[in-house]
């Protein structure tokens, strides 16, 4: 799995100005986030709502304009790209969105939606080539050709998400960023879509960033994990080592809170306490300090940096582990 690095993010900073009670307040959605994606790898970004995971994905696509940091795709500076370079970049990095209802244009046929990126960038040779590629893309996601002429309202949620995926792989990109692609789907349909994504990863040699709040789903698909809390990376490393030996207190709470389908494994006790702090308060020290069972004085004044616990092991940002 350890291919060459295809995408790297360094020190990403992204804040939003919002009005709150008549005052302008800055919400630091992403604070000094670094990560890298190897060729052919699936990197999972996991965290609860508001942790900044979606903003990281959108920044890589330049759907949000970060204020600081670097994003390099195959060595090219993504944040400086414009015009033709940016178009090309966006052909190479594609996105699958959470809500298949909202992300398809209700007035366009499935074929037109799938072909849109190719149409805009003139990648089709002629009409027959376009039709052929649409057909190939549909069959790659397990939909038959009759779907090409249909409209989104005629499709079920699972079928729409397949269309969303078909659109993301035409033309075939280098990287797919999937932002909560199965959260809106029923469990039985979730499994179909997850299998499909994993199949496509193999056949199309895709690298993927998989963003989700569901550690069950993300643990299933990812080679490596990035755990985010309130805009920062708190733990990152191989999926298996993190799931087996979660080190950061937040990762532990997150894992412990996942309801397991076994009544004999009922959660007893009170592992995670409190709720995430307000996004509007200025953050000093460790973002998790207000809920952490291991909190010490240092945590309230000094932000912990990512460090390895052992050689080649996961990195964690915590003073007290």
């Amino acid at each position: 799995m350890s291919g060459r690095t295809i995408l790297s993010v360094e020190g990403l900073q992204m804040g939003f100005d919002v009005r709150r009670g008549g005052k302008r307040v800055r919400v630091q959605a992403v604070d000094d986030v670094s990560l890298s994606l190897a060729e052919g790898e699936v990197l999972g970004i996991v965290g609860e709502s508001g942790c900044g995971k979606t903003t990281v994905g959108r920044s890589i696509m330049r759907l949000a304009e970060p204020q600081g940091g670097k994003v390099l795709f195959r060595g090219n500076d993504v944040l400086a790209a414009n015009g033709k370079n940016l178009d090309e970049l966006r052909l190479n990095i594609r996105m699958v969105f959470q809500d298949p209802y909202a992300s398809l244009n209700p007035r366009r046929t499935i074929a037109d939606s799938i072909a849109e990126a190719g149409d805009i960038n003139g990648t089709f040779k002629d009409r027959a080539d376009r039709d052929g590629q649409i057909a190939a893309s549909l069959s790659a996601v397990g939909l038959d050709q009759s779907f090409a002429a249909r409209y989104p309202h005629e499709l079920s949620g699972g079928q729409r998400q397949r269309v969303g995926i078909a659109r993301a792989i035409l033309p075939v990109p280098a990287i797919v960023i999937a932002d909560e692609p199965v959260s809106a789907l029923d469990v039985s349909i979730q499994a179909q879509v997850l299998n499909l994504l994993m199949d496509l990863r193999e056949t199309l040699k895709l690298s993927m960033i998989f963003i989700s709040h569901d550690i069950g789903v993300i643990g299933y698909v990812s080679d490596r994990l990035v755990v985010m809390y309130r805009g920062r990376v708190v733990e990152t490393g191989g999926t298996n080592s993190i799931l087996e030996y979660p080190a950061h207190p937040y990762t532990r709470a997150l894992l412990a809170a996942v309801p397991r389908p076994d009544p004999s494994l009922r959660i007893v006790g009170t592992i995670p306490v409190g709720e995430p702090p307000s996004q509007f308060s200025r953050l000093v020290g460790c973002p998790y300090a207000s809920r952490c069972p291991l909190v010490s004085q240092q945590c309230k004044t000094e932000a912990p940096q990512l460090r390895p616990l052992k050689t080649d092991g996961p990195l964690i940002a915590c003073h007290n582990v």
Partner: protein
Amino acid sequence: MSALRIEGLTVSIGAGPATADIVDDVSLTLERGKILGLVGESGSGKSMTSLAAMGLLPKPGPRIRAGRVMLDGADVTQLEPWQRVEAGHGAMSMIFQEPMTSLNPVRRVGDQIVEAVRVRERVGAREATDRARELLELVRIPDAELQLSAFPHQLSGGMRQRVMIAIALAGRPQVLIADEPTTALDVTVQFQILGLLRELCNALDMAVLFITHDMGVIAQLADRVAVMYAGRIVENAPARELFAAPSHPYSRALMACMPIRGVGAHRLRTIPGQAPRAGSVKAGCAFAARCPDVRDSCRTVTLTRFDIAADHDALCAFPVTDGRPL
């Protein structure tokens, strides 16, 4: 005596030959101090079942075609919610998935709880406010006194859901219906709300009907589980027994397709195709088209309940009874 009995409830939409039973012959029994989990995918009819039980079916539209809702021994099937209150039947409350749509955004939290208290009890303003504060403490909202004057938007999602629970408890219900109350919440917050519901169920001796699509949540919380598919209860069992030895092929398939952490290497099992809309399958078993164990007769059979054990039954012609793994 059970707190709530739903007997052969059938809810229909449409008329004449276009009639579809979106809830089809559903029977459920809720006991005080116990949590019954109702699990199913979207469109399976689980919310319609609970709305019918509450007397809150949208009008015009679905109607109760057959069956009874027995609340504390009295038949309340045809009574409006206000008629139930006037007739002095035991109270039933409901909480929903998205607390923000159920709370009034321009009224203070305290006023909204006071309103709920005074609908049920003839008490003065001060007494009602005291009770509102108690209710906020009961659902473990820190700084209850302070939060009485907060507006809903000033609270986090978890706190809003606690406020909804406080409002639901204002009428001292003996039955609480919770329709996907934690689906919109983060897992660490969900964990706390599930713990709170269990605690309240025990402390107040309430019967709780907990509706969800999440088998994991059901396993954590429920004492009994009813699995719903296309408008019908397909399996009904104590939680431990259901998860140890699921009998209906649909319950089994639902459990098998969950991604469980740490097993990444293999392909997830799936249920082929998609669930039919409740009431759309007119003959035979509604799950036949997706069932791994389907036989020819399943497409035409008139299903009857198969007793797996004393309090465990499945609506299946050929249930799995040998305890084989998923």
